[in-house]
Structures are given as structure tokens and as C-alpha cells.
């Protein structure tokens, strides 16, 4: 099995083959003496040349991360031989940025109107969750093309709330 893996923006190719005596692993073509045990769901114990790593998989509706010890890595995994891919069309339309709800909550206020000009970092709207009002800021300088949120309505994490171009 061959996987193209992107970790924090860096690409890796991981080749794994099952053999009688274990798994054969190559990382970017280089052989790795890998010993892997899934100890419980989402927790992998890796031993490589004696060094032990506990790797946790964190899969949320929004994204995929792996934790190696206390460090968290954003990941995308693609199997070149299948159509299953977690890579999103990220590069597309670099000039358009979506303002996405980072958590579920309730939209309490809009701070700008459609077609209005905003600065990078300027507040666009306010979402309330867990007793706190959280100002969501524009990811870039530009024009607010569209506001998809309505004050008083609940939103889910990942919902697109506004588009800035």
C-alpha cells in the first residue's frame, strides 16, 4: 500500500507492505524498521530503533490530526491507487477566502454588511458559545462578497459564515 501523506504542509510518501515477519515500511523511499501496535482505538504505539512513540489520531468533522506525544500535526492522507482522498481543493481560488465557524454556537451579531470593505483581522460577526461572545475576524483584506449567517440562528463547526474576496 502506498499513501501520499501531507503533514503540516510537507509531503511524504509512505509505503507499507505486509510480510510474514511483519510490515515493511518505507518513508520517501528510505526503509524504516517499524514496529506498530494499535493499543486501543485511535492510539498507535510505534517503536522505531528502540524509540517509543505514542501516536493519537484525532478525526473531527473538520479535519484530521495526529499527535506524536504532545505535538499536534495537521494531516491529509491520499491513497494514489484509489479515489479516496482527504485532500481538499485548498489551492483553488486563492483570491477568495471563506470565514468558517470554528465551533458550534449561535450567531449574535453581524459587524459588517455585504459588499463592505474589510481589513485583514477586522471583526465580521460574533458567535456565542459556552457563555462567551467570540468575534470572528476577516482572514484577509477585501470585500465581503456574501454573508451566509443570520443573527439568532445556530451554526455548526465548519459552516461557512461569510466569503471575503
Amino acid at each position, binding site marked *: 500500500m502506498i499513501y501520499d501523506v501531507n503533514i503540516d504542509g510537507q509531503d511524504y510518501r509512505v509505503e507499507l507492505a505486509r510480510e510474514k515477519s511483519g510490515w515493511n515500511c518505507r518513508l520517501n523511499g528510505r526503509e524504516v524498521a517499524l514496529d*506498530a501496535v494499535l493499543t486501543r482505538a485511535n492510539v498507535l504505539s510505534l517503536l522505531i530503533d528502540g524509540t517509543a512513540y505514542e501516536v493519537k489520531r484525532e478525526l473531527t468533522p473538520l479535519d484530521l490530526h495526529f499527535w506524536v*506525544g504532545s505535538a499536534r500535526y495537521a494531516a491529509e492522507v491520499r491513497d494514489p491507487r484509489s479515489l479516496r482522498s482527504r485532500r481538499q481543493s485548498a489551492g483553488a481560488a486563492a483570491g477568495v477566502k471563506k470565514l468558517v465557524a470554528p465551533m458550534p454556537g449561535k450567531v449574535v451579531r453581524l459587524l459588517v454588511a455585504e459588499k463592505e470593505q474589510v481589513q485583514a483581522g477586522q471583526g465580521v460577526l460574533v458567535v456565542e458559545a459556552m457563555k462567551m461572545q467570540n468575534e470572528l475576524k476577516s482572514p484577509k483584506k477585501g470585500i465581503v462578497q456574501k454573508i451566509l449567517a443570520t443573527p439568532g440562528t445556530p451554526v455548526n463547526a465548519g459552516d461557512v459564515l461569510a466569503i471575503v474576496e
Partner: protein
Amino acid sequence: MFKKILIANRGEIAVRVMRACRELGIPSVAVYSEVDRASLHVRHADEAYFIGPAAATESYLNIEKILDVARRSGADAIHPGYGFLSENPRFARACGEAGVKFIGPTAEAMELLGSKTRARQAMGRAGVPFVPGSSHGLEFDEAVRVAREVGYPIMLKAAAGGGGKGMRTVRSADELRSAFDSARSEAERAFGDGEVYIEKLIENPRHIEMQVLADEHGHTLWLGERECSVQRRHQKVLEESPSPIVDAEMRRRMGEAAVKVAEIGGYTNAGTVEFLVDDKKNFYFLEVNTRLQVEHPVTEMVTGLDLVHLQIQIAAGEPLPFRQPDVQLRGHAMECRIYAEDPDNNFFPSPGTITLLLIPGGPGVRRDSGMYEGWSVPLDYDPLLAKLIGYGSDRQQTIMRLRRALHEYFVGGIKTNISLFRRILKNPNFIAGKLDTGFLDRLLQHPEDDPVRKEHPEIAAIAAGVFAALEHVPATLNGPSGGSAPAPAKNGASNWRQAGRVESLQ
């Protein structure tokens, strides 16, 4: 002793109080809102009653509904926890009228000590040092005069205040007008009371508080201080006892001042007297928290006492079972408040489902938690999920122990501030005990100082490949094994074991 205790709260503090009830052999009654049916406090209770929608005003803050559950269940006492109705004298009074014992101080003590201006007046009469300023609500003209007298910079504060609301720092006379107006209207909106007073600003103070305990027979004791200077937006994040700067003599003086405050207020049960401490170790009375504090466990660890047991015993009319000289402070304790919030993204709250939970154990580690794996954190309440408390023979050991425990702690599926504590506990100023209420803000201005280095992206890559490969092998190896199988978690370990063994010998 009480026959049954209702806990008018949710989350970790409700669980903590229920544990004390069970240890005392008293059945506990939970109340829960619409979004809390599956919450841990319902699982820990002997009885549980639904009290309404998610909105706290219609459930946990609704006095009538809570007293109705007390009546239906036959509870003869109510523990309010912290937050919600815990400092509401109207609730304490309503309990009394309903013939249910409120586990806390009297409504009168709450009213006297809960108003900051009334409390300041009382402290003045009793000779307890407090921050210079006014001790009553001010009109603007008076504010101008008082500010000039105590000298800028000053703080404007709401008499009914809390949580930083109605609070303004004023550095010069020309800022006063607009600050005064906005503080007043904010206080009016937040507390329905626009009373505002002035305190001299103590620059970069420490926030140190003293735990007191008073029975209903006139005995009042102090149980040592807690240093609570690690704060963000006036919200405590980490607390410890003892304070790195308080020695035995200062502790005794603060303790005696705190006992005097409690006695002036006719205080009973557990309470906390907060002080500001300046860089010359002068301490000034700030306010009284007329409830059990979130951070009470650090005092429990250094005294070896259980404050909730003692609260219940005091409320049942028992005298304190020890005297001041019997209180033995030993070792060092520190608490990390685990919040559902994202320290890497403006501390945005992070409700959602906890998909994986690995919890620390071993020596010197206490967990007071309201979460479990599989539980969905509702978006309707305070983001405090759990408290991790470390104990060690000294401050250094406690810090290292908490770092170890944080290494073991993992909450997956939602964001938490666990990584923030790794930073705090490795910060040289923190380790040196150089703290003030500005410490955390300064630390957060240097995100590049994060001690967690991303040194192993290639390990993450390999793991990503292995997880993907495991999903390609038959479902019994990796995937959960279907309806009636008891252990979806056991998965591929045994099959991989053989492989692992051979590889590791290479």
C-alpha cells in the same frame, strides 16, 4: 445529619459534591437540563430530575424549579456548588423558607460581603487593610475628587461586580469621564446595578486568597493561602498553595485578617477572602467569595482535609472537629483548569464530542472531572471540563509532576487548553515563582516560546500511513466488531504483535 442532599449544579463540581455525599453515606439528587441528560453528574447521582431547557435561566438558575425538586425528592439540604445560584442571597433565603438547609453562609452574610462597597466599609471599621479608594458608590464629581486624592492610575469598579464586568483602568484625569460612563452602563446592564466606586490601581499585583472555614458555633479558622495570579481576562487559569512568596509569618497575618473579615460578616461555612498583594508584599482586602471556590482542591491537598465534607458537617450544625493549631500544611499543590477552548485560536470555545480520552494517574495526581469519552460537551455552559491537581513535597516536584501528568492527558475531538499548561509549567518566570496578574498576558504575547517542538513530522506521516493501512485490512482487525461485541477497542493488537516483535529485534 441530612437525609438527602440536592446538588443545584452540573459538571465537575456537581460530581465532586456527590462524591462527598456518598462518602458521608448521604443519597444525592441531581438536576439536569435538556442537554445534560447524559452528563456525568447524572451518572453519579442516586436520583436525577429534569428541570428544563438548556438556558440556565430556565433550569439551573430557576429557584422555583430547584426547590420543587427538593420537595419531590425529599432532599433536606442543597449544595449550590459554585456559579449559578451559589452566591444568590435570594436563593439562600428561599431555601430557608422552604425548610431546606442551604449549604453555605446565611443570606445576610452574603449580602454584606457580596457587595464590594459594603464589604469595604466593614473592613474599614474593622481595621483590615484594603486598597485605598472610596467605599461607596460615586457620582462623577465625587469620582473626580477621589481619583485625585488616591492618585492615578485608578480602577473604576462595579459594586456588584464580578468577571471583569463594569471594570475600567483609568490612567489620567482626562480618561475618567468616558471610562466612568461606560463602566456604569456596563454594570447597569450586567448586574442591574450601576453603582461604581474607585480603587487605587495596584500595578501588576499578585492575587492571593485565604481559605476560611466557620462553623455555626462561633469558631472561624483559616486554612492557608492560594496564589491565583495566573489569569486571563480576570479568569483564573492555574492556582497553587502555598504561594511562592508567602512565608509563615505573612500567612499568619493574612489568615488572621481573613478570619476577622469572616467574623465581621457573621460568616459561616466555607469562604474565601481575596487579597491583592503589591511588590512589597503588602496585602489589601479585595473581596469575599461566599462559596466553595473552583480551586478548593489545592487547599485540600496541602491540608489533608475535605472541604465539602466539612461544609456539609457545618451546615448540619456540627462544630469544627479541630482548632487552628491542628491544621497541618504540608507539601505543595497546584491546579490546572482544563477548559474546552482553543489556545491556538483566540481561546475560542470548543464544544463537541470527546472522541478519545486518555487520563493521567499515579502518585500525586488528582482529577476532578465532568467529562468522559463519548460525551458531547454542550455549548450552553461554562467551558470548564475538568481540573487536574498535582501534589508534591515541594513546588519543584509539583511542577514536574504536573508536566508528567499533562504528558499523559489527552482529550481528542475537541480543543482544550492542555497545551497552554505545558507552556506555563516550562516558563522560567513561572518556575522561579515570579508571578503577577499580568504574567499570562505577557506569556501569550510570545507564541514562539512554545516548548512543544514539532520534531517528528515523519513519525506523524508513518502513523498516518499505518492507520490508513489498518483500515484496508479486514474490519475485525481495526474496525469495531459489530453490534453485540463488547470491545470495539481491542482491534489489531494481537495480529500486529508478531510483526512488531520481529521488527524490533532488527
